[in-house]
């Protein structure tokens, strides 16, 4: 049994302008100890998918359907008390912006101790010992003393380490990292990703990494989910996705990676903008931006189906496979993806 199995997850928000379909029929699963990367542009529904699983969306104005089975238990129908037991204990989350994700008026020690004591009936002293242990594990120097410091006394990278320590303090089965490196500078990004990978080996947690950075996915993920406009465009084990990408949107993402070996005036970009989730386009949601668009694409939304010779590689596109193989090969010749 998979640790987390999400089936046909839908999250709709009621707004004054109408219903925003932020997540529209997403399915995936995460195995114990594995890493799933969710990739997509801003507003593609990556974060909302995970917030829904955590039960952190505002309950008012949110309509959720489908299933999110965590150790066999459907989180979408679980009561709020049960969800609180799971959150921070079996399943933890770190967020994009470490500068604002820690409470400025409590010392980081206090915030970690709170995380421990919410789920464990232990003394403050024991909770503190555990907190310091985790701060050491994430590489905070002089952790014993720094536990009494306040968030503003740490740099962005150090704060994200603190967030990771806080998430792992109760040894969760699943860690959701929502763009954990986006707000950090490049060298720190690499350190944080390395830290996550190392800690995964040590703690054995499964990880979902949400990112728009294909580099992050290539380095850390076992499986990849490419999301576009609230739907899954392509889903595959990481090496397959990079060796043989099968969706024009994935090509677009790969094609827009910066390259070091040619003198391009500017980066290649996917033309147009992500569609409004209030009124998504008919048919395939990518068709207004797709260079391979056919008449069919404007009518029928392609289902997510396995490619003919690989049941683990799913994609949602009407284009025939011969063309795709040819285009994918052409793309890989000219992009950095080869290097990866």
């Amino acid at each position: 049994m998979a640790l987390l199995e999400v089936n046909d997850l839908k999250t709709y928000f009621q707004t004054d302008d109408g219903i925003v379909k932020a997540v529209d029929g997403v399915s995936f699963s995460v195995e114990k100890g594995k890493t799933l990367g969710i990739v997509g542009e801003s507003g593609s529904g990556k974060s909302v998918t995970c917030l829904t699983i955590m039960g952190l969306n505002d309950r008012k104005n949110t309509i959720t359907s489908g299933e999110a089975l965590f150790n066999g238990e459907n989180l979408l129908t679980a009561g709020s008390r049960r969800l609180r037991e799971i959150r921070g204990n079996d399943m933890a989350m770190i967020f994009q912006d470490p500068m604002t994700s820690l409470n400025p008026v409590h010392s980081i020690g206090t915030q970690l101790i709170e995380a421990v004591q919410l789920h464990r009936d232990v003394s403050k002293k024991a909770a503190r010992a555990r907190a310091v242990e985790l701060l050491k594990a994430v590489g905070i120097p002089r952790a014993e003393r720094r536990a009494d410091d306040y968030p503003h006394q740490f740099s962005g990278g150090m704060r994200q380490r603190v967030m990771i320590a806080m998430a792992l303090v109760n040894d969760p089965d699943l860690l959701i990292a929502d763009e954990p490196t986006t707000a950090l500078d490049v060298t720190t990004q690499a350190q944080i990703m390395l830290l996550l990978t190392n800690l995964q080996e040590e703690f054995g947690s499964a990880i979902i990494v949400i990112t728009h950075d294909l580099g992050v996915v290539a380095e850390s993920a076992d499986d990849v989910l490419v999301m576009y406009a609230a739907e899954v465009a392509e889903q595959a084990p990481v090496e397959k996705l990079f060796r043989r990408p099968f969706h024009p949107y994935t090509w677009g993402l790969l094609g827009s990676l910066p390259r070091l070996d040619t003198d391009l005036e500017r980066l290649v970009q996917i033309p147009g903008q992500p569609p409004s989730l209030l009124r998504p386009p008919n048919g395939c949601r990518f068709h207004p931006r797709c260079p391979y668009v056919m008449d069919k694409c404007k009518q029928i939304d392609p289902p997510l189906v396995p490619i003919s010779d690989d049941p683990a590689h799913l994609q949602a596109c009407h284009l025939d496979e011969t063309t795709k193989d040819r285009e994918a090969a052409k793309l890989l010749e000219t992009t950095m993806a080869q290097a990866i």
Partner: protein
Amino acid sequence: MIRYLIRRVLWAIVLFVVVTLVTYVIFFLVPNDLAAKVAGQGSSQEARARAIHHLGLDRPVYVQYGKFMWALVKPVPVHVGSVPVFVRPQGNLGYSYIRATPVNELIKSAAPVTGSLVFGGVIVWLLIALPIGILSALRPRSVMDRASMTFVLVGISAHPIWIGLIFAYVFGFRLGWFPISNYCNFFNHAGGCGGPVQWAYHLILPWITYAILFAALYARMIRANVMEAMTEDYVRTARAKGAPEQRVLRSHVLRNALLPVVTMLGMDIGVGLGGAVFTETIYNLPGLGKLILRAIGETDLPIVMGVVVFATFAIIVFNLIIDLLYAWIDPRIRLS
């Protein structure tokens, strides 16, 4: 910290000089017939001239101001036993032109009245504003929220004089629940009534009257702050840790949302201690507001100056207290 304190104190001195100087100058720009008031109606020219000379009003303004300031800040040694240990400012505010009583005495008897009104009022308005502000922030657009915001609108729009008169009429006169006027001393029975019970009983209507405007302003401010804090990332973090809503609110939302309220409180207490003129007038409370109002009417400069000095001092002191308190509760300020 020390440098910060020194800077604050220097600023306070500048502020103090400016405020007193401006008050002094305004007083001499306003046309008045002080001599007639001091010497009495129908007094002779000669008597009036003598009175003016006696009060020093025939000297240039800057001399008068200098003498006033000197009486105030002149260092006098403080003795422990017979040994002078340190010096303190003399703090002499002079004598009333009209009554010839020491201004210090007048302030000393009026300040506790205003203090009782203001501090009691602060408690009343916080008791109203905190629950209203927090609850309506938690349920925006609910019936409760709309009712609260209606109260806020009324509270801000209705003038304290009007509220005071209505309250005095309804609860004092018609229903007879509370006394309409006068003040009872907290400690002694001077002047007919006294003791904590009578003191509070006589102050209930003034407290509520004084508090309503502030309760409305604070409820609105607390609501906005709490709503903003609820959307902060660290609140989401707290929920992601599995903290129950109540704990999220208490430990993460309120602690941050109420920081600006503390600042406001310091300012408003300081200003209030200068005299709650409207409330004191309606309920006939012998506080600083009534004192300065009468003194202005009689162009009794020393009393006006006395109250201004006291109010300025109160504002400066309370702002300093709040700054220190703020540094204590907000680690970002304390440690930077």
